[in-house]
């Protein structure tokens, strides 16, 4: 589904990604773990077409993304779930959900979103930024599912959420996966990562230094946690 080869990226003079390689197969949920500043978010931004200074190959379903603009990439089926949840203050909850065009064959209807998230329905006419952090996270995820995105790029969707809400994010990602949606997830919470993902990549100083199965992450949990500084 997604194949990244020799991806390097810079912020001005500083190189943040160095020949990173990874792939995500259709229907897989894959996480990127790594310390702060390892280049995880930059990698997602490169895939989305939001980071200008990069080199390498990024292919989505066999199509090289090259210099396609972010909006073209979104219309190819990429669903963007940014680390700050991306709620618009000047749009209502319903408008936040219906802003993006539908791009995939199996988009969620607004009714289905509201059935799954009664809290969003209740607040549908409020400005999205007045929702709680957890509700805003659900909104960001529901928005890309309503687009019908085939591949989600999620930047730390569980950050700062209470355990119950983390579980809800997990349920949602698992349900998306059941419908064939592919996910690339930046995640610091290893317990959560192993509960939703099939595989994991460890990113260190801009390089992919390890590819791990769930079982390996579980057995090396202590070592990984101390490495990640958590």
């Amino acid at each position, binding site marked *: 589904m997604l194949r990244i080869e020799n991806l390097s990226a810079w912020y001005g003079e500083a190189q943040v990604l160095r020949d990173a390689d990874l792939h995500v197969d259709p229907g897989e949920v894959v996480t990127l773990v790594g310390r702060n500043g390892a280049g995880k978010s930059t990698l997602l931004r490169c895939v989305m077409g939001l980071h200008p200074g990069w080199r390498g190959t990024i292919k989505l379903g066999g199509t090289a993304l090259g210099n396609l603009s972010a909006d*073209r990439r*979104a219309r190819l089926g990429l669903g963007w779930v940014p680390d700050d949840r*991306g709620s618009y*203050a000047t*749009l209502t909850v319903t408008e936040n959900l219906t802003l993006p*065009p539908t791009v995939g064959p199996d988009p969620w209807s607004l009714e289905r979103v509201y059935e799954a998230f009664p809290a969003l329905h209740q607040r549908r006419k409020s400005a999205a930024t007045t929702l709680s952090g957890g509700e805003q996270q659900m909104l960001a995820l529901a*928005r890309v599912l309503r687009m019908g995105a085939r591949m989600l790029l999620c930047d730390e969707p569980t950050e700062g959420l209470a355990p119950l809400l983390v579980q809800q994010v997990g349920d949602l990602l698992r349900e998306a996966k059941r419908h064939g949606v592919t996910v690339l997830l930046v995640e610091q919470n290893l317990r959560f990562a192993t509960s939703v993902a099939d595989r994991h990549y460890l990113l260190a100083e801009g390089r992919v230094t390890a590819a791990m199965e769930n079982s390996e992450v579980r057995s090396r949990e202590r070592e990984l946690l101390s490495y990640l500084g958590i």
Partner: protein
Amino acid sequence: MTAFLQSTFNGLVSGAFYALLALGLAVIFGMLRVVNFAHGAFYMLGAFGAYVLLAEAGVPFWLALVVVPLALALLGMALERAFIHRLTRLDPLYNFLLTFGLTLILQDLVKLRYGVQSSPYEAPAGLRGSVDLGLFDFPTYRVFILGFAVAVCVGVWWALARTRVGMVARAATERPELTRALGINVGRWITPVFGFGTALAGLAGVLAAPMRAVNPLMGADLIIVVFAVVVIGGLGSIFGSVAAGFGIGMAQAWAEAYLSAFPIVAQTIVFIVMAAVLFWRPAGLFGRAEAPA
């Protein structure tokens, strides 16, 4: 009481011009992050457009009210395509200088052809004379301007709040990068939005022709006040621009009426208010602090 109402009404009429011009500036700034210094020149072109069409081709006011804004929209879109969009990725100062330069060029081109004297333009037949507002008579044309400007502002607000295009414009104004990542081609809307802003300036110019002196510099003085209005309302805030436009119009009229011993106050009140607002709320009355991209 009558005098107070009368000066309030006069203030609302000049506020109507501020509001229409500030609205165009705010729409443009929101979407393009361009402070369009040429806005005053577009206003002037609007007034001259109405004058020239009537004097040279006999085109009546009502037709000019439609044709001139459309022509200015086309001119604005052409200038945006030819020049402004090339500079939007650079420091905002470049577009400030560019649009300032455009102002000087447009003003001098008009000066070259029509000189600096004011050209007369009569209000259309149906809007001459005055209407009885109960306590006082008020020029019909001014009543018309007020009603028309309010209708335009409400219409723009409605379009922004209730239509899909308006929703996209709000999203792109608030968070351009996120909006692109959600599959919306923000760039496609930039040129039409600039054209819409210049059309509003042209519309204000046509409305001004029968009431204000039509001359090449008519926009230059006005635009300084309008910039202050936009800052008071909150840069990029549509509602703030309109509210501040009418508010400043009234404040000026009251200062003229009640502080006539100190004419300097009426002339500078807009800047006094601006300084006070900036001190108290740096983002303007209805502005929000810059959101992340």
